[in-house]
């Protein structure tokens, strides 16, 4: 159970937005659930590469607190630019440690988005001395109104997570995404009742 919670906490922190933003862009983000706080800062040194740091703390079901720090390198492998949409394939990598163990993460992610639809899928692999597992995450989103760029954009999203070797259940989380200029924030709750709050700013 501890391992499962560790997984959910870690990978839920990876779900916010593009892992690479734009050339010379900085992304700062934070996410909170009932048992976790995650903070990350990324710098895109090219439009298709970013590096950053990720600090993450969670409390498992037994009340044990664990803390991780990662250095991450992300790559936009391929982008399809269409007239009304954009598709992307990203690669994730990271090295870090907890207080008592070396840890690494690797994964791949694909998304397709227009101004009214959003689809994404992600596979991640995470390992330290406690866990060595895969996780799959998918999202579908819809924005019913195309807001002016100077207005608040609202998205309805549905997220599903599946841990291949762990619970063998899909955790479903409906959420709302708000986007205003360079600020994005999300609020939602899983069908199990766990809240999720996230915030991101890029500049």
């Amino acid at each position, binding site marked *: 159970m501890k391992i499962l919670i560790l997984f959910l906490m870690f990978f839920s922190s990876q779900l916010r937005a593009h892992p690479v933003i*734009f050339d010379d862009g900085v992304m700062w983000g934070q996410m909170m659930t009932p048992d976790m706080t995650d903070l990350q800062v990324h710098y895109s040194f090219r439009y298709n590469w970013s590096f950053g740091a990720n600090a993450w703390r969670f409390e498992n079901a037994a009340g044990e607190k664990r803390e991780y720090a990662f250095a991450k390198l992300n790559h936009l492998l391929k*982008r399809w*630019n269409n007239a009304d*949409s954009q598709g992307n394939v990203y690669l994730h990598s990271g090295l870090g440690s907890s207080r008592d163990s070396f840890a690494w993460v690797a994964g791949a992610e694909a998304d397709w988005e227009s*101004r009214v639809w959003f689809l994404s899928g992600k596979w991640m692999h995470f390992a330290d001395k406690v866990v060595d597992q895969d996780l799959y995450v998918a999202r579908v989103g819809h924005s019913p109104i195309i807001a002016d760029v100077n207005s608040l954009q609202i998205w309805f999203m549905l997220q599903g997570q599946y841990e291949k070797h762990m619970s063998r259940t899909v955790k479903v989380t409906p959420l709302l995404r708000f*986007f205003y200029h360079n600020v994005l924030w999300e609020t939602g709750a899983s069908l199990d009742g766990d809240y999720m709050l996230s915030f991101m700013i890029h500049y």
Partner: protein
Amino acid sequence: MKKILLLAALLFSSAVYAETVKVDVNGMVCSMCIQGIKKKFGNVEHVTEVDVNLDNKVVTLTTHGKNDVSDETIKKLITEAGYDVVKIARQ
């Protein structure tokens, strides 16, 4: 009087030679795209204004003078920002 004439001449000369470049761009879907493109052109010499319109997928550049920024430079900067240039039109 001479000063006024000189000032007016300077003022109107810059207006006469300013150029508007409209660039059709594929792949722009959100405000983050706008921010990235504006940042890319923000420090380009002779570019005085950058406007990004997601509705018609056009980036409009205003420059000091005619051909201050070449098509090649525009394509390079848009590509480096992560998007594709479809067409460039100068006015």
